């Protein structure tokens, strides 16, 4: 029975493709009217012929033919060619709404009211190749531009230019390869190789390569979304993708390189009311970027550039699909305005950054560059993040390496925004930082690793930070109540709070570079304290004097370099590897009196902290380290030394 039905369906589809068609040829345009739909075609005054609402001037008609061509409703097919003129074929049911102008391979369409189009919108299907062509569209209704294997180059303007301010789907047909290239114009007479004044929905399971030579590669005056599409942006004078209101990537594979500014930039629309995120993004003008699925690879090298920049909030999660983001930025500082230096960043959210999922690999090798940067708050509740600032500081050659007094990191950090220098930082937020989950690995070659100009609150996740200045620095209070936190500084404090520091839970492994730095530093000079109230603590190089230790602490005066230790608190054993250098002495704390073994062999456990620790560790061998009660106060005297640490683990 099922087989019979399939035969019937197949037969029907076959027959449906055999409709009679009246073709009306006008220059390079063929209007195709299905015979079943034409009804009465009227002549008037020896001058016009009207078919399905489309009125032709009889003198314009080259010829009419009747054949069995199949007509796809709502379709306008544009076939470009390097020999002659583009051919445009227009389905009869939309003929009355479409007015084409063709000059060689420069095709301009004016689309009028399509409200009467049955069930769907007009689709403009582009195919063929031309080295001197264009697709321009004006009008006021939604439509789809289907890329069906087109290589479209316009040496004197944009490849696709849509003045229509409505939503436009740019869809690459499944399996097709499409390339858009615009010309170079020093006067920037147009905004992008692919431009739309209205919303752009980039989609389809084909591929689209965009070569921008004048300004942006892709620009929308409204929002842009990406779904499924394989999008390669090979060049742009400005941004790879530039839009207003908001940007959403749901899936697909986007690669951006060779751009003169940001990889992706989302601005606010000045003419509309500013909003936050809205339900289904209805009337949203937030400047937000939502990356919630797909693979995004961005390389930027322009001074002050951002891999992804949102003037609103940058959201990264996996709400739609697996998210993989890789950004490499080598741009360094934009010093074109010496009174307003601009640091480069892999990711920048002016208002905030919120990460709850995804795999992020962020590398900034530029001078004074940051892997992540926000003028507002940073919230991380999930994801796997590797953020590296590999560059040197800009405008200062020595700071960071030498270290500054503990407790004044915030003040020093504040200077970083002054006009004459920019410091290379792993992750920097001007607002509060909240970490509730995720696996986070941060490296800063020259300055602070994780820095907030407000508070830092960590309640979950795994956080490993290695930096040449403070590994983790808060201008205000810092609280750890859960998760696993390692702050490893090779030039300053491990964890440095310029307000109070609260250790209430979790596991904290902190390493400072040596006297006068400490592993856990609160701003005692400013009247603040370190409060040890819970959690498990390993502090190589000691902790801030005058601390409030409501949970007992213990100490050993020395430790061995590059050695595996096992700290056991109750039934939990945490194995950790000591650095190649660091402050002298070690302070430990746990929910109950800990025991410590040196020189152990780790046979199993859950590797964390970039291989420097194992939770739930099984160890063997080693020797017990004698621990003394620690009641706070002074440090351990000069220590550390012994050369520079190993590289990035």
């Amino acid at each position, binding site marked *: 029975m099922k087989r019979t039905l399939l035969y019937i*369906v197949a*037969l*029907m589809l076959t*027959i*449906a*493709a*055999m*409709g*009679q068609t*009246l073709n009306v040829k006008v220059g390079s345009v063929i209007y195709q009217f299905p*015979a*079943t739909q*034409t*009804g*009465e*075609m*009227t*002549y008037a*005054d*020896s001058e016009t012929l009207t078919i399905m609402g489309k009125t032709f001037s*009889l*003198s314009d*008609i080259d*010829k*009419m*033919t*009747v*054949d069995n061509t199949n007509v796809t409703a709502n379709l306008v097919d544009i076939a470009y060619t390097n020999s002659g003129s583009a051919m445009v074929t227009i389905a009869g049911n939309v003929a009355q709404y479409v007015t084409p102008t063709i000059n060689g391979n420069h095709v301009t369409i004016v689309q009028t009211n399509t409200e009467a189009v049955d069930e769907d919108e007009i689709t403009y299907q582009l195919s063929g190749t031309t080295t001197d062509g264009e697709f321009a569209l004006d009008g006021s209704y939604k439509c789809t531009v289907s890329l069906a294997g087109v290589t479209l180059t316009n040496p004197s303007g944009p490849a696709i230019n849509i003045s229509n301010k409505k939503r436009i789907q740019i869809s690459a047909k499944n399996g097709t390869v499409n390339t858009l290239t615009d010309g170079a114009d020093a006067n920037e007479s147009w905004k992008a190789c692919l431009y739309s004044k209205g919303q752009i929905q980039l989609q389809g399971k084909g591929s689209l390569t965009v070569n921008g030579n004048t300004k942006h590669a892709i620009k929308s005056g409204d929002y842009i979304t990406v779904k499924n599409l394989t999008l390669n942006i090979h060049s742009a004078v400005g941004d790879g993708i530039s839009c207003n209101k908001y940007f959403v990537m749901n899936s697909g594979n986007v690669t951006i390189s060779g751009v003169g500014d940001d990889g992706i930039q989302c601005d606010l629309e000045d003419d509309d009311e500013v909003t936050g995120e809205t339900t289904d993004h209805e009337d949203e003008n937030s400047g937000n970027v939502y990356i919630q699925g797909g693979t995004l690879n961005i390389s930027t090298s322009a001074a002050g550039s951002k891999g992804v920049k949102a003037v609103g909030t940058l959201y990264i999660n996996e709400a739609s699909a697996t998210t993989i983001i890789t950004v490499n930025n080598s741009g360094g500082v934009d010093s074109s305005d010496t009174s307003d230096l601009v640091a480069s960043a892999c990711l920048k959210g002016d208002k905030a950054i919120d990460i709850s999922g995804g795999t992020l690999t962020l590398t900034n090798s530029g001078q004074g560059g940051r892997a992540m940067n926000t003028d507002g708050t940073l919230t991380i509740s999930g994801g796997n993040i590797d953020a590296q600032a590999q560059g040197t500081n800009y405008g200062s050659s020595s700071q960071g390496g030498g270290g500054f007094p503990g407790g004044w990191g915030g003040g020093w950090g504040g200077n970083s925004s002054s006009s004459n220098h920019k410091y290379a930082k792993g992750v920097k937020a001007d607002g509060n930082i909240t970490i509730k989950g995720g696996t986070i690995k941060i490296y800063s070659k020259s300055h602070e690793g994780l820095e907030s100009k407000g508070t830092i609150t960590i309640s979950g996740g795994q956080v490993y930070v290695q930096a040449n200045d403070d590994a983790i620095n808060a201008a205000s209070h810092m609280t750890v109540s859960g998760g696993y936190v390692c702050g490893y500084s090779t030039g300053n404090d491990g964890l440095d709070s310029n307000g109070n520091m609260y250790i209430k839970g979790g596991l904290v492994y902190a390493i400072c570079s040596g006297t006068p730095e400490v592993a856990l530093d609160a701003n005692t000079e400013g009247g603040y304290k370190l409060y040890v109230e819970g959690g498990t603590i390993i502090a190589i190089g000691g902790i801030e004097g005058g601390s409030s230790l409501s949970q007992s602490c213990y100490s050993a005066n020395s430790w061995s370099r590059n050695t595996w230790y096992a700290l056991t608190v109750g039934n939990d054993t945490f194995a950790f590897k000591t650095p190649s250098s660091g402050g002298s002495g070690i302070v430990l704390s746990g929910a109950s009196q800990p025991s410590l073994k040196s020189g152990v062999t780790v046979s199993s456990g859950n590797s964390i902290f970039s291989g420097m620790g194992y939770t739930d560790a099984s160890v063997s061998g080693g020797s017990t380290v004698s621990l003394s009660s620690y009641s706070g106060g002074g440090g351990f005297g000069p220590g550390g030394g012994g050369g520079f640490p190993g590289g990035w683990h």
Partner: protein
Amino acid sequence: MALVGALIVQAEEYAYLTFETTDGEKASVAVSSLTLTINGNTLTAGSQTFTLSNLSKMYFSNTNETTAIEEITTATLDEAADIYDLQGHKVTKEQMKRGVYIVKTKSRTYKMIVK
């Protein structure tokens, strides 16, 4: 069921494109491989010619709706495959004298009066 309906509509094959003049007369032209061209005030549809100023409409039809006495050109006569007199005798073009004849071409059949 909807699909079956679509089948019927799409499968419809029209045999003619029928032209209607401003005075209501009709002339049907077979649509098979039909080409229409316009030259000045004349529209040529296959072997038929129409004066544009006389045309009011055209439409696809399944039957030959020709109602008018049409202007037959010598070219049309040249296309004649068979010519019969009213007695049913087959005649040649050269044998046609004053009288009424049935002229069959590839696409149409005409009743022709020779005066």
